[in-house]
């Protein structure tokens, strides 16, 4: 049974744009995320490791390996790394991921691929994609900081296995989840579902 302590002493979030994420998208994402977090958010140079592993037989990056790599590259214990890729993520065991993180880890991944309306044959909508990406980033960062999924449908930690579910679930941390996060992580804009 997993019972790892959440990351403590986090001072900043480092956002690392990856393949296919242009500067404008990365910048807009940074601004939106900054509004939702009390921690400083920094945009780091593009992260493009040369040895990215695809999932065999699928046009996807192996999210497990990518996350592992992102954590290995971690230099500063006081920062959490948020890798954002335009590539679709999967693994040998799961057909896809919107994002991935490890409890008590130091990094999280978000893929824009399945957050884009175009993926489902709908007209492009960058604003909607960014909105979903922020929610997914908050969700994965919540895992890094020790939160499991939440039963409260209004909480951003509610488990979502479809993009519709991401759209439907809440945009903030419920009181219980917020109270379990370290002090000074969330801004007022991310607290409370009531």
């Amino acid at each position, binding site marked *: 049974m997993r019972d790892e302590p959440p990351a403590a002493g986090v001072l900043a979030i480092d956002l690392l744009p990856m393949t296919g994420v242009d500067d404008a998208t990365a910048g807009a994402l940074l601004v939106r995320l900054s509004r939702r977090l009390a921690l400083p958010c920094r945009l780091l140079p593009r992260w493009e490791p040369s040895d990215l592993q695809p999932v065999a037989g699928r046009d996807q990056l192996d999210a*497990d390996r990518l996350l592992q790599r992102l954590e290995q590259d971690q230099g500063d214990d006081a920062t959490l790394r948020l890798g954002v890729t335009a590539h679709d993520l999967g*693994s*040998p065991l*799961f*057909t896809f991921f919107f994002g991935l993180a490890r*409890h008590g880890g130091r990094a999280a991944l978000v893929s824009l691929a399945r957050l884009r309306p175009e993926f489902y044959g709908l007209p492009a909508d960058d604003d909607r994609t960014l909105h979903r990406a922020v929610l997914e980033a908050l969700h994965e960062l919540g895992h890094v900081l020790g939160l*499991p999924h939440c*039963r409260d449908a209004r909480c951003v930690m509610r488990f979502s296995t479809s993009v519709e579910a991401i759209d439907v679930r809440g945009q903030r941390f419920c009181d219980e989840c917020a109270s379990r996060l370290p002090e000074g992580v969330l801004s007022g804009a991310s607290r409370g579902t009531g």
Partner: protein
Amino acid sequence: MNALAPPKDQLAILVIDDELIVRESLGAWLADDGYRVETAESGAAALRLASSTRYDVAFIDIQMPKMDGLELQKRLLAANPSMTTIVMTAYASVDTAVRALKEGAYDYIVKPFDPDELLHLVERARERCALQSENERLRQTLDAHAEPEELVGDSPAMKKLLEIVRTVGPTDTTVLVHGESGTGKELVARAIHASSPRRYAPLVCVHCGALAEGVLESELFGHEKGAFTGAAYHHKGKFEQADGGTIFLDEIGDISPKVQVELLRVLEEKRVTRVGGKTPIAVDFRVVAATHQDLSELVAQGRFREDLFYRLDVVRVEIPPLRERPGDVPVLARHFLHRLQTSMNKKDMHFSDAALEALAAHDWPGNVRELQNAVERAAVLGHPPELDVDDLPLDVRRAEAAPGAAARSLADVERRHIERVLAETEWNVTRAAAVLDVDRGTLYNKIAKYGLERPEHAR
């Protein structure tokens, strides 16, 4: 989600796969969703864990070295039959997954997992666990009531009867219950069923004496659509309804020779053919039969088949009439009154000593049923909390007025005899008139003359 479903953190899940990536990835996924998860890298490791922890759900990889998933599932289910097992398989081994389903797996999931499919599968497994817990709780409640509490009495005869019921109950032996009308033959059948391994399956009661030959055939064996006029739909017979459980054939001595033949065949072959049907249907049942008649006498008279008699008379349970165990009367009276007290929401009701003496002095031709009715009448119409002789039925009071004496006048004898026959035939006036060898009109006149009243249970 089922409201009964346990919180996720109370559900223990074991993930068994020889691949580390699967254990870590699925384990983390389930833990993120709030479940208690442990992982094992082999069948042997899983069995070790399961020997000390009770897991609700197991995700088992089909293809593992040494002990494969099917073998592991078999061993896990043998140790914990209520465990929900889900097998994980690749497309290439779906056939094996289907085999796993046949061997008790709840479901299977193909790698790689679609997160949405996995989410719903785990939710369904959680609901199943909730239902199994509820089922377990209900079974425990049933077990608590399995004691034959309605068979009340301190007399040696009743103690012997209870001992037989407890001994024969857990077996699959056919039982023939013999006793006068109202002695509680159905209660004995219920107690036998309740103490048997079949208790979670139905107990189906058939009152053979109350049904005409054709109706009884259809009731017992069922019928196909169009088998006879009015058979608009196919109908499952009582034997089919009792599949896995017990069938109670009351008043078995009343069935016609034709039905006796058919019944014998069903008992011997354990297969029924519906009326108008051609295909025999296999059924698994235990038989408890009952009669107030002397079946061996009926055999001697040629009215009951000898082979059927011996098929039924494997273990015989005799229920003594109440007049032969007067010491049980106060015990039973208090038992019925206590039960009524609860259902009527009254307190402290009890019989006076004189009332108990009057009850014990009566010879109870209608046996326990008559006593039960007398107690109910006293509780409803009497003057609680203490119920006295005046609160008892007239014939009980008469017995008390002349303790130990039989009815004296010719009219008294006639009244008592008619009462007894009516009780024995459960107030079937046609049958009672036949027994008394008078026409129905005469019997109705006598009933009116003596002010006899049909008891509640016979209405």
